[in-house]
């Protein structure tokens, strides 16, 4: 079952009165997000990630294209969608002098939660986000990490079926980022929330996402499971060996994409390390090479990102 089905979403921003400037932010984006999954959207700055998320969050109207969220039409039934969706921004801001519990209470009211249910939900979220000790602290006195946890708590106030996360760990310390990532994974596992995650951090996307879309210049260049994307780009696995003995000639080795020998370290890029390693080791042994150390390095999503960010894509 698809929670998000978008087709051909386009958006161009026009600024200026006398000399209007047009900037195309989305140039026909289509995507489908399965229920209960985490779907990542990655891409360079200005790729259109926030624009896409804002359209799906109903705070920006697309120029053309259509989308269905939670079985409702985005343009015809936005109010029904808003009731069951929420957004967490990496650079979230709330009214400066309201206290943590008051901010959650305010948004609970906006979602129409009655007094008792609202109080219960606020307490649950304070506890889950480890904010209970800070409940009476004004927003402008919170650290960046606490602000981010509050943003996450606010995003869950209405028990959303679809949660949009716009760079939720940006600017956080590594330990705080780890905590937030664990909470995101927990949301999917425990509550079955469908999550759309925009991120700059490839490791985050690789750890959390079932599928990832690469957005560039307002278009999706590639989409799939992280492992599929790596395979699709033929980035290959790197096998690094520290060796001694005569310099081998590996030309013609099946599955070999490239190789280099420098200062006693042989680096071979092969299509699939597990399949090619035995043949490589046998060849080296036959040529009298002694292998002292061996490492296999699989490409990560960052390599995929770098590849797609290149101008020819």
């Amino acid at each position, binding site marked *: 079952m698809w929670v998000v089905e978008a087709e051909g979403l386009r958006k161009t921003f026009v600024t200026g009165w006398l000399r209007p400037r047009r900037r195309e932010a989305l140039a026909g984006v289509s995507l489908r997000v399965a229920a209960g999954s985490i779907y990542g959207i990655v891409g360079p700055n200005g790729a259109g990630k926030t624009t896409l998320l804002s359209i799906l969050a109903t705070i920006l109207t697309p120029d053309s294209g259509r989308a269905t969220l939670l079985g409702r039409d985005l343009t015809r039934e936005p109010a029904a969608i808003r009731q069951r969706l929420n957004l967490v*921004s990496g650079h979230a801001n709330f009214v400066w*002098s309201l206290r943590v519990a008051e901010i959650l209470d305010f948004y609970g*009211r*906006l979602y129409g*939660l009655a007094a008792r249910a609202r109080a219960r939900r606020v307490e649950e979220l304070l506890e889950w986000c480890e904010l209970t000790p800070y409940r009476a602290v004004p927003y402008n006195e919170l650290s960046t990490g606490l602000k981010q946890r509050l943003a996450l708590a606010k995003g869950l106030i209405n028990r959303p079926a679809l949660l949009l996360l716009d760079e939720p760990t940006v600017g956080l310390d590594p330990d705080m980022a780890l905590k937030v990532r664990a909470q995101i994974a927990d949301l999917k596992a425990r509550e079955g929330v469908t999550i759309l995650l925009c991120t700059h951090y490839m490791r985050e996307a690789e750890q959390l996402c079932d599928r990832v879309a690469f957005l560039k210049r307002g278009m999706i260049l590639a989409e799939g499971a992280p492992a599929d994307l790596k395979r699709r780009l033929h980035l290959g696995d790197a096998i690094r060996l520290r060796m001694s003995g005569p310099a081998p000639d590996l030309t013609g080795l099946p599955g070999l994409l490239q190789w280099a020998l420098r200062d006693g370290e042989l680096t071979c890029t092969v299509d699939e390390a597990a399949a090619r390693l035995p043949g490589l080791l046998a060849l080296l042994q036959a040529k009298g090479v002694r292998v002292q150390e061996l490492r296999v390095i699989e490409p990560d999503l960052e390599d995929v990102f770098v590849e797609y960010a290149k101008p020819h894509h």
Partner: protein
Amino acid sequence: MRSHTIKAGAFFIRNFRMTRRNAFTLFEVLFWPAVGLASVGLLTRFLALDADTTAFVLTGTIALSVVQVCQLDVAYGLLFDVWSKSVKHQFLAPIGVGHLVAGSWAMGAVRGALAFLVMASFGAWAFGFDFFKAGLLPLVLFLLGCLLSAAGVGVLTCILLLLFGYRAEVAAWSLVSMLMVLCGVYYPVDLLPAPLAAAGRLLPLTGILEGFRAGYGFAPATASPWGEGLALGVGYLLAGGFTLHWAARSARRSGMLLRLSE
């Protein structure tokens, strides 16, 4: 209905909490209105105005202050989010502009009524101004008319914010000055050049002031200033509500909601 009350109540409670915490709010509600009343009251003494003419001028001063205090609260319903760059979170929630206006206006009505009480008491004590001379019903209608006018002005500020962004926040403080000129706050509207007087007649506060001042012996320019003033106030509020709804849709189209959140 319960859900609507909760949603509108969000803005009422938030404005209340912000008011309670901000010492400068006392300046808005008490200090500036009192300073304005004292200055104008002393001017009436200097000019040796009679009691009814003094009442004419002080009525305008008090009306203007009540409108200013109340309309600020309506504008704060959006301005707090604009200043804290959280506008998108407000519009992401399943609320309508009616919730924003109703909740923040209710808090504005409380603050406006408080400002009125303070100024009326101060006016009576310092300048012998009898606010009950016109009668209780005109007094209630006067306050209602001021608060209705304030709702219209606050909604207009919100509309301008959604259409023009940060540049329009100045409207929260400047729109009331337009009323001061056009509505005959310190003088009868007929003193204005004809086109401005005609424009003044289209504003609800003009009728409200004329209706109330009739109780002090100043004949209104029209047969039913109360009816005209209140009808215009309700009409503008409804029209403002629809325009605000349109402005919110426009802000979603233009990306203004995002720009106001960056």
